C-alpha cells in the first residue's frame, strides 16, 4: 500500500497534525496563563499528541484513529492516576496533518514545542517517516497505529514504534496462506515493477520457494499496464495453480478480469494494494474468490471490551486502525506508570520493553520498534465484498472465526 494508500495516509496524518497544531496553540496559551503545568483541578497536565488527516479524502480514518486515542486517555483519566507523586491529568493534543508529507515535520515540531510527552501517529507512512526525524531529535516517543512502510523503523531511531505490521511481513503471510490453503504446485508471480509491487512479489517468491513450490519466471508490467493478455496467455500455457500479483488495484483488476476471460482457473492472490471492494468494480464477477492480505487485524476482531467501550462512547464501530491507536496510547501510559515518570527519556526504555495485552492482541516490540509477530489478515472476495478469512500470526494460519472468538473471550 505504499503507492496509493501512503499519500492518502500522509494526507490524513497531516490533517491531524494541523488540527493538533491548532489545539496546541490554544493549549500553550492556557499553559502560559496558569504559568505552571498544574491545571485541571490541581492535577499535572500531561499532553499526548495525536496526528492524522482530519480533513480530506480519508478524514474518516483519521477520526477513527483519533477516537482510539481519546478513548484510551479518557479511560486513564477516569481511573485517576498518580505518577511521580503527582496527580496526572492526560490531555490529547490532536492535529490535522492532511495526509501531507510536508506537514508531518511541521506538526511534529509543534508537538515538540508544546512539550508533549508522547505521540500517537501519524496515519500515513509517507507523513510519519519525515515526521519521525523531528521526534527523534526532540526525543519524543512516537507510536504509529497504521504506518506500514518498512522504512519507518529502518532509520535507526530509538523513539519510533508501530503497533501494526510491516508491508514486508505481508509477502510471507499471503504466500504461506496460499501454500497451506490451496497447496499449489506451480505459482506464477507477476509485479508492476514499482518498489512496492516488486518488493512484495520478491518476498512472496522467497516464501513459496522455501515451501518447495515451483515459481515460474517473473512476469512484469508497469503500474499503468492495463493489457495483461499476452502475459496471461503465456502463463496459461504453463498451467499455474495460483497467480500472485504485486501491485495496485488499477493493474490487479484488469489482470484477474482478463485471466478469467482467457479461461485461467488459477487462484489470484494480491497484497494490500489490491485488497479492497474496488476489485469487484474493476474486474466484475471475475474477482470472486480472489484472496489478498492487509497488515493488522480487522477492527471487528479487536477485543470485546474495547469494542463495547468504543461503541458506548462514540456510538459507532471502529473502522480500521482505532484498536491500534488505542493500544499505542495505552502503551505510552503504561510505560509511564511503570517507571513512575512522564519524562520521555525515562519511560522510553520501559516502552521498548513493553509486554502488553491490548485491544489488538499481545504487543511486544523488537529492537527496531516493530511489533513482534504482528498479525496479517487474509481476505477473500465473497459475493462482491472482501471478507476476512484468516489471520496469519508468526507463520501460523488461524481461521478468522476462531481468532475473533479468541479475542472476544
Amino acid at each position, binding site marked *: 500500500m505504499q503507492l496509493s494508500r501512503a499519500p492518502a495516509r500522509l494526507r490524513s496524518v497531516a490533517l491531524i497534525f494541523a488540527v493538533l497544531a491548532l489545539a496546541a496553540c490554544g493549549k500553550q496559551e492556557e499553559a502560559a496563563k496558569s504559568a505552571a503545568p498544574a491545571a485541571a483541578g490541581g492535577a499535572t497536565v500531561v499532553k499526548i499528541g495525536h496526528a492524522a488527516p482530519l480533513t480530506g479524502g480519508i478524514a474518516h480514518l483519521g477520526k477513527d484513529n483519533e477516537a482510539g486515542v481519546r478513548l484510551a486517555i479518557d479511560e486513564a483519566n477516569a481511573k485517576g492516576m498518580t505518577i511521580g507523586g503527582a496527580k496526572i491529568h492526560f490531555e490529547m493534543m490532536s492535529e490535522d496533518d492532511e495526509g501531507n508529507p510536508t506537514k508531518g515535520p511541521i506538526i511534529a515540531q509543534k508537538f515538540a514545542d508544546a512539550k508533549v510527552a508522547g505521540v500517537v501517529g501519524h496515519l500515513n507512512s509517507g507523513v510519519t517517516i519525515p515526521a519521525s526525524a523531528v521526534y527523534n531529535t526532540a526525543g519524543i516517543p512516537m507510536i504509529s497505529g497504521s504506518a506500514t512502510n518498512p522504512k519507518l523503523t529502518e532509520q535507526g531511531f530509538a523513539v519510533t514504534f508501530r503497533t501494526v505490521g510491516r508491508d514486508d511481513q505481508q509477502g510471507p503471510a499471503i504466500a504461506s496462506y496460499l501454500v497451506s490453503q490451496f497447496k499449489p504446485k506451480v505459482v506464477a508471480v507477476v509485479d508492476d*515493477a514499482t518498489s512496492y509491487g516488486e518488493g512484495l512479489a520478491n518476498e512472496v517468491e522467497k516464501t513459496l520457494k522455501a515451501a518447495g513450490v*515451483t*515459481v*515460474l*519466471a*517473473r*512476469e*512484469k*508490467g*508497469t503500474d*499503468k*499496464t*492495463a*493489457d495483461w*493478455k*499476452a*502475459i496471461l*496467455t*503465456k502463463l*496459461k*500455457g504453463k498451467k499455474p495453480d495460483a497467480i500472485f500479483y504485486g501491485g495496485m*488495484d*488499477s493493474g490487479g*483488476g*484488469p489482470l484477474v*478480469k*482478463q485471466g478469467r*476471460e*482467457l*479461461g485461467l482457473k488459477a487462484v489470484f492472490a494480491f497484497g494490500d494494494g489490491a485488497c479492497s471492494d*474496488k476489485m469487484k*468494480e*474493476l*474486474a*466484475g464477477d471475475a474477482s470472486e474468490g480472489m484472496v489478498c492480505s492487509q497488515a493488522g487485524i480487522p477492527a471487528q476482531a479487536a477485543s470485546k471490551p474495547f469494542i463495547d467501550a468504543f461503541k458506548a462512547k462514540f456510538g459507532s464501530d471502529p473502522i480500521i486502525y482505532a484498536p491500534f491507536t488505542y493500544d499505542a496510547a495505552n502503551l505510552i501510559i503504561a510505560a509511564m506508570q511503570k517507571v513512575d515518570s512522564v519524562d520521555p527519556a525515562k519511560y522510553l526504555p520501559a516502552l521498548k520493553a513493553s509486554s502488553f495485552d491490548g485491544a489488538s492482541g499481545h504487543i511486544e516490540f523488537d529492537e527496531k520498534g516493530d511489533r513482534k509477530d504482528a498479525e496479517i489478515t487474509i481476505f477473500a472476495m465473497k459475493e462482491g465484498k472482501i471478507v476476512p478469512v484468516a489471520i496469519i500470526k508468526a507463520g501460523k494460519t488461524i481461521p478468522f472465526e476462531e481468532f475473533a472468538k479468541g479475542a472476544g473471550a
Partner: protein
Amino acid sequence: MDVFLQQIVNGLTLGSIYAIVALGYTMVYGIVQLINFAHGEVVMIGAMVALTVIGSLAGANTGMPPIVIVLAGIACAVPVCMVVGFTMERVAYRPLRGAPRLAPLITAIGISIILQHLAMLIWSRNPLSFPQIIPNPVFEIAGASITGVQIAIIGLSALMMLGLTALVYRTRLGVAMRATSENPQVAGLMGVNINRVISSTFVIGAGLGAVAGVMVGTYYGIAHYTMGALLGLKAFSAAVLGGIGNLAGAMLGGILLGLVEALGAGYIGEFTDLCHVSWISSGLAERCARDGHVVLMGSNYQDVFAFLVLIAVLVFRPSGLLGERVGDRA
C-alpha cells in the same frame, strides 16, 4: 499451439484498436503534414465521456437494455470528441498553418498536456472502473478463447475502416480531401474550401478516436486520465510503420504492431532464457537446475516493441511499409 493462436487473437484485438487510433494520426498528417500529438488525449476523453454516460445511465435504473446504454455512451462520446477535435484545429493549429513545421508540433504537445490535465480536473486522478454492464461471453475456438467484446472490437474496427475508405474514395468530401492532401493551394484555386476540408479531417479522426476510447475502456474495464499518452504514441508508431499519410498503411501498421507486441511479450522470455545455453558456465547451469529459468528480458519489455519497430522503420524504410511519397515531407 493454442498459446500461439491465443496470442494472435490478443494481438488482433489490440491491433484493431491501434489501427483505428493510427487512422486519426495518418489522416491529419496526410492533409496538413502535422503530427497531432493530442490525438491520444482525444481517445482518452472519448473513454471518459462514455464512462460517465454509461455509469450514470446504468446507475439511474432506466430499465434500458445494456446494449442501448453502451450505444448511448458511444453516441455521446463521438460528438464530444468531434467538438474537441474541431476546436483544437480551429484554435491551435489553423493560426499556425503557415508557420515553420516545429511550431504546430510543439503546439500539439501543449494541447495534449492541456487536455490531459483538464481531464484530471474533471474526472480525478484515480483510475476509474469502466462499468461492465454487457454480458461478455467467452467462445473457444481451436483452444483459444475469444470474448464477445473482442469480436465486437475487431468487427467494429473493420467496419469503420471500410467506412472511412469509402468516404475517402467514393464521396465529394473524399475527393476534396485527397486534392487538399496533394496540393492545398491548387485545390483552393479549384474551388475546394480547404478550411472546411481540414476541419472535417480533424472531426472525423476525433470521432474514430472516440470509438477507440470506448473500445479500450470496455476491453480493459478501466480508464485513467493518462491512458491516452502511451496509446497515442504506439498508434503513432503504427502509422509510421505503415507509412504515415497512407490510410491502408495505418490499418496494416496497427494490426502488425498489435501482433508484434502480443507475440513479443509472450515469447521474449523464452528466447532470452539463458538456460538454453546453460553450458556456458557451471554457475548458470546450477541456477537453471534450481529455478528452471534465468530470463534475461522478461515481459516488462512489452511496451518497448512498438518503439523498436518505430526506430527500425525510421532507419531502414523511413517511408513505411506502404508509404511512397516521403522524401521532402517526413
